[in-house]
């Protein structure tokens, strides 16, 4: 078994898990309570949901970007 590779992967998973919890914390504590549009407006609920979904999407892409850089740092560098 390639202990070093497995070890690197475990570090990646624990790091990404921690980042994911922080991301959900940001969504729960800061993004979800925002009142971006008055819900009484026509389609206000949908615009509000769409904006918050966009913020969640940006956070997810950032999370995957960090994951990508971390794996490339550990494995691509070693592969060259």
């Amino acid at each position: 078994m390639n202990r070093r590779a497995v070890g690197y992967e475990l570090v990646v998973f624990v790091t990404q898990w921690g980042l994911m919890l922080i991301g959900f914390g940001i969504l729960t504590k800061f993004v979800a309570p925002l009142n971006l549009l008055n819900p009484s407006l026509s389609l206000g609920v949908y615009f509000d949901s769409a904006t918050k979904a966009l913020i969640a999407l940006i956070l997810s892409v950032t999370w995957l970007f960090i994951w990508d850089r971390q794996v490339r740092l550990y494995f691509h560098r070693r592969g060259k």
Partner: protein
Amino acid sequence: MASLGANTIAILIALGSFPVSLALTRFFMYWNAKHGIIGIDVHKPNRPKVPEMVGSAVPITLILFAAIYATLGGASSIPLLAYSLVVGLAALVGAFDDRLRMRGIFKPLLTLLCGLPLLILGIAFPGQIYSSMLHVPLFGQYHLPVIYPLTILVATSVTSNTVNMLDPLNGSMAGGMSIVAGGLLIGLLLVGAGSMPIFLYASLMFSLLGFLYYNRFPARAFAGNVGQLSIGASIGALAILGKTEIASVVAIFPNIQNSFFFLSRIRRFTEHRELTSKPTKLLPDGRLADSEDPRAPLTLVRTLLIGRPATENEIVSSIWILFLTSTSLAVITLLLTGV
């Protein structure tokens, strides 16, 4: 104590799915081989022929036991019906792909539709399939009245396709998903969840173990898309029905990494068989090595081979260790969520 009793009964009924899955796997091995439904194990020097689509034993067992549990009055039949429909539809998409070799883009599109039973029955029977309140570890919960229902369709498609993409070696998918199902089952028991998700996770784990008996190295049966997609859809449906959304994402970290690096390099939905640049190569001594092709995707198996070739058994053991870790993190996530 009443809850403990219901959970014990649920697990005892689910235990029956092990021999049923084992017997069905044996039957499909014989039947498929006889009817020429065979694949080639390309990771062995002698390239043995192995019966394909044998993983259909798993969705059949899951649907059969969901029906048995509903008949015995273990839980409301609506969520069990939704679960069976999701698993059945995903198996159907997989079977079509196995027989007709569809282009890579069709699988994610068709599996989007597999989540429809959860959405439709969830709207028709409010509170029985999903609640749009997402429980987050450490930070409480928030209401997603519009986004949550739409996410259901994406969730089943993502889980089924990501499971489909990480079955390159003997026992890697069946063993990995057994660990995921077993870990989430333990997590649900620890947080005192209801007996229905406990039954479904137990049934999934025992069915997978029955199939794994013949799929482990050296494999005598291949799951095929029919098995992989339905097992992935089952994980997705259970995340919704069991309220284990975030924990399920954590548990399938190895699948997410594998799919993400595959898609980020290839930049399109395609089949492994259509790849011109392979991530791994077979050495004459039977070990697998990194192909060192810069155009090939950095799959999970490839990361485990960088700098050092390994036997198929060693790589599968490493993958299982990764699943054990991600599932342990998932159990901690469930405990932190407390639902």
